[in-house]
């Protein structure tokens, strides 16, 4: 069993140690008691044995004296000498009574009995020949003898001298219970006389009770030489001494009786030990609780802190070590609380506006109940790039901060406003349906309507709002945000102020990530194909060029749009392998067309990566040479954003390319942030207005204005102007009317494989406007 609690451990260790010590003490006491008892038993038995032996000797001497006294009696001697038997018997009885002898006899010197107290009758010999022989040899003899009554007697045999030996007198004292009791009293031991004969053990006399004798006989029969005999549930230390030749005396002392006082002392000690342990256990519990309780309080406080609850201060504890720990904890709590506030601010707040950031927004969204409706709105400041360009970044930042403050005033809890990035803000509306969201959008746009003053400069701010509804438009924040952004783009296009995601088409599946790994295989497996989109020269109505567009004919996914893999090719550097391949194919195809008399200018898109590659100019030179192409039959299109990555290096490379005679074009013009001052320096031949402007040119007067001014600007700089994404005849007409040079888009032709182009060109009816005569192209 493991003790995980400090309190338990303290109690267990303390009580366990005490228990161990007490157990050892008790064992020691018990051991030494046993040794003391054993030594005392031995000592008592030794002393008792000595006393017993001395007493028996003394008894013999006394008996002998008594017999000698009788033998010296003149009357007795006279009776013997005169063979006066009645007198002899009378004297014997009288004397026996006097000294307590039971057996008395008078024998002739040779042995035959003359008189005795036991019986009268025929003369017979003295029954103990060994005793008799001994008396004849030594003058007298003493011994223990069995009579034919089965009893043991202490016999003494002395001569009767007158003064010659005239007779022997024998006296016998019974060895009986009285004898044993007397000796027991004097020795302090139990005295038992044992007879062992023919395998039988009998107790002849004893100081023990009757039932104990039977038990003793049985115990002795079982253990003839046992030092410790157990009978009647009591243990006796035993010493066996011979008594005469046929009997044995067992001197015994009760071990249990000797141990009794030690037992009671041990019990008292045990009781004291147990009481001590109980008191100690109670004390340890209190002490452990005293220690553990503040620790537990600290643990609870630490858990609260770990859970992020910094509000409750730590308990004030006694001014000991744990109290000091509690105070340190308190400082730590303060520190952590302060730092966490800072970290949360950094992590969840937008530094510029003080609004929640994207992370906060996403996390708040994640806390929404899954079944409650909600709305996500994305706001983008219209033409913020232009404002930024015109007034500079510091002003742009201040504008964003001002907008943020204004939004914060409009949006009240539980609705949330966050700045996502740049000039894009997001809103989270709880329990919002389409109507609520619409009302919110209108309120918000109205609030933005009021002009903002920055350094006494009035700035008109307008925004476009896209709204996605949860769960109708998506279940996750990313989807909802993207769809809201798409709706926002639509709103921006249409200048509607706001748009709902449901009104905009669903997005293409984004499978980009999984495509990356497959691109290399695609290049080797010739899954990349090049489609060519014709470019219409508006004034002449003729097809003057094509834009080479990379397509990926994926075996499973079908045709993959460039936007879904080119950015990743650029990020991974794989573009370095694609671009040379693309250039090679296009150059080859262009040369083929030239050979057939189709003098088309082929445009190829270069990435920023390609543009900044120092080998590009040399590569282009070799390419032109290899295919014997006139340099102006190839046009390299570079996006504004590609130029802006390293404007100086880009300018350097473009100059080299221009020197080769290649045509250069700025793609997606208007979407990027290139300044006019920089554009002016570039050795380019054309600009392509971004499709976002063209698509709305007939519905949005503002876009129309931008496109018209851009055409005029391009022409003013001597550049050819290309409009991308022309889809409708109306657009085409409008562009032609405004003097745009070249148009490109579904309105003219979709991109097509190279082999389809000659046929398409053959069928194409030159779209020559009747009103306007064709303009001369500068190229």
């Amino acid at each position, binding site marked *: 069993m493991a003790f995980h609690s400090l309190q338990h451990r303290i109690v267990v260790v303390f009580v366990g140690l005490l228990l161990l010590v007490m157990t050892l003490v008790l064992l020691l006491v018990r051991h030494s008691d046993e040794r003391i008892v054993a030594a005392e038993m031995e000592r008592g038995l030794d002393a008792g044995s000595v006393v017993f032996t001395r007493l028996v000797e003394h008894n013999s001497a006394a008996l002998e004296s008594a017999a000698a006294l009788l033998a*010296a009696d*003149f009357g007795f*001697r*006279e009776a*013997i*000498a*005169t063979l006066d038997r009645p007198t002899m018997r009378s004297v014997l009885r009288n004397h026996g009574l006097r000294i307590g002898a039971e057996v008395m006899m008078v024998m002739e010197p040779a042995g035959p009995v003359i008189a005795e107290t036991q019986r009268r009758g025929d003369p017979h010999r003295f029954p103990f020949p060994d005793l008799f022989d001994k008396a004849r040899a030594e003058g007298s003899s003493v011994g223990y003898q069995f009579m034919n009554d089965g009893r043991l007697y202490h016999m003494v045999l002395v001569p009767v*001298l*007158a*003064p*010659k030996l*005239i007779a022997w007198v024998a006296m016998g004292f019974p060895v009986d219970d009285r004898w044993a009791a007397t000796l027991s009293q004097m020795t302090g031991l139990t005295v038992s006389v044992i007879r062992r004969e023919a395998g039988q053990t009998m107790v002849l006399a004893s100081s023990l009770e009757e039932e104990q004798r039977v038990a003793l006989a049985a115990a002795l029969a079982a253990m003839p030489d046992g030092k410790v005999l157990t009978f009647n549930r009591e243990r006796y230390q035993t010493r066996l001494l011979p008594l005469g030749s046929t009997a044995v005396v067992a001197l015994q002392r009760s071990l249990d009786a000797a141990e009794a006082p030690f037992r009671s002392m041990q019990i008292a000690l045990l009781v004291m030990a147990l009481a001590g342990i109980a008191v100690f256990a109670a004390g340890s519990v209190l002490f452990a609780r005293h220690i553990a309780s503040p620790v537990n309080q600290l643990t609870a406080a630490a858990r609260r802190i770990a859970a992020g609850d910094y509000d409750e201060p730590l308990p004030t504890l006694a001014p000991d070590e744990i109290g000091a720990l509690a105070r340190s904890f308190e400082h730590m709590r303060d520190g952590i609380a302060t730092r966490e506030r800072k970290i949360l601010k950094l992590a969840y707040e937008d530094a510029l506006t003080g609004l929640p950031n994207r992370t906060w927004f996403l996390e708040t969204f994640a806390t929404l109940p899954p079944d409650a409706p909600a709305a996500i709105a994305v706001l983008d400041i219209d033409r913020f790039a232009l404002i930024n360009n015109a007034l500079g970044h510091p002003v742009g930042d201040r504008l964003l901060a001002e907008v943020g403050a204004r939004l914060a005033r409009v949006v009240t809890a539980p609705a949330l406003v966050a700045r996502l990035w740049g000039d894009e803000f997001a809103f989270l509306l709880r329990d919002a349906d389409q109507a609520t969201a619409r009302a919110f959008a209108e309120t918000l746009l109205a609030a933005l309507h009021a002009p903002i003053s920055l350094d006494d400069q009035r700035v008109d701010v307008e925004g476009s709002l896209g709204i996605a509804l949860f769960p109708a438009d998506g279940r996750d924040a990313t989807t909802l945000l993207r769809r809201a952004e798409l709706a926002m783009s639509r709103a921006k296009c249409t200048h509607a102020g706001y748009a709902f995601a449901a009104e905009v088409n669903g997005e293409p599946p984004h499978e980009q990530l999984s495509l990356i790994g497959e691109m290399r295989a695609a290049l080797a497996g010739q899954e990349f194909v090049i489609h060519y989109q014709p470019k219409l020269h508006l004034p002449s109505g003729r097809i003057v060029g094509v834009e080479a567009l990379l397509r990926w004919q994926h075996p499973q996914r079908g045709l993959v749009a460039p936007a879904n893999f080119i950015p990743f090719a650029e990020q991974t550097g794989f573009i370095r392998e694609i671009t040379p391949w693309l250039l090679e194919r296009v150059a080859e195809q262009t040369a083929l067309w030239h050979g057939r008399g189709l003098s088309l200018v082929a445009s190829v898109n270069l990435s920023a990566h390609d543009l900044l590659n120092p080998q590009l100019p040399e590569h282009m030179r070799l390419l032109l040479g290899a295919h014997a192409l006139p340099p102006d039959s190839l046009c390299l299109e570079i996006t504004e954003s590609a130029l802006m990555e390293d404007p100086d290096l880009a300018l350097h490379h473009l100059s080299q390319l221009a020197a080769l005679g290649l045509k250069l074009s700025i793609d997606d013009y208007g979407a990027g942030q290139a300044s006019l001052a920089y554009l002016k320096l570039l050795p380019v031949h054309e600009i392509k207005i971004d499709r976002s402007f063209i698509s709305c040119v007939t519905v949005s007067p503002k876009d129309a204005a931008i496109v018209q001014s851009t055409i005029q600007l391009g022409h003013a700089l001597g550049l050819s102007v290309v409009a991308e994404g022309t889809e409708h005849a109306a657009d085409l007409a409008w562009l032609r009317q405004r003097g745009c040079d070249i148009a490109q888009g579904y309105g003219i032709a979709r991109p097509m494989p190279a082999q389809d182009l000659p046929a398409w060109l053959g069928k194409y009816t030159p779209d020559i406007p009747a009103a306007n005569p064709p303009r001369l192209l500068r190229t």
Partner: protein
Amino acid sequence: MSARAVVTAILLGACLQATAGTLVAHVVGKDGMPVEDAAVVLEPLAGGAGVRPVKAEIAQQDREYMPYLTIVPRGTVVEFPNRDPFKHHVYSFSPAKVFEIKLYAGKAAQPVVFDQTGEVALGCNVHDWMEAYVLVVNSNHYAKSGTDGHAMIGAVPPGRYSLRLWHPRQRAEAPAQDIEIGADTRALQLVLDVAPRVARPKPPPDAEDY
């Protein structure tokens, strides 16, 4: 004087009585050592002449009987003078003569007549260690061996005798043997198994008594 010299002297003396014989007995124990206080008695086989009583005395002196052995012819009267300053109590339970005399210090006592042959053991009822023996014989020819074991019977009329050897502590009685006594001196070596005399405990004399 050596034992041999004594024997020579006795033999020379006997040669002077030409009409009587002399018996010189040398009594030894089984171990060959001389035995003291052995009685050597010659009793005539052929209906001897009348025995003549003699005078004898057994004194009590220094809490002892003196002498230890007395040989007397039948009919002899023995005196028991008490030379100690205290009382003695002479007794005999011997069948040959049972008697007791309480002897008071310095007081003359009645003599005892030993008129029956046999051995008489004398004790003192007051002093257990005191013992004396009287051998009553039917003859006037007897002698008691001295410390050297020699006993000489002189002036023995020649003739046939029964030679009897006796000792108070003899272990077994020696059989009597016939012997011819001539006018000369006859020397005999006699062997008797005798128990050694065991000195019985005797307390030291009481100073007040003297």
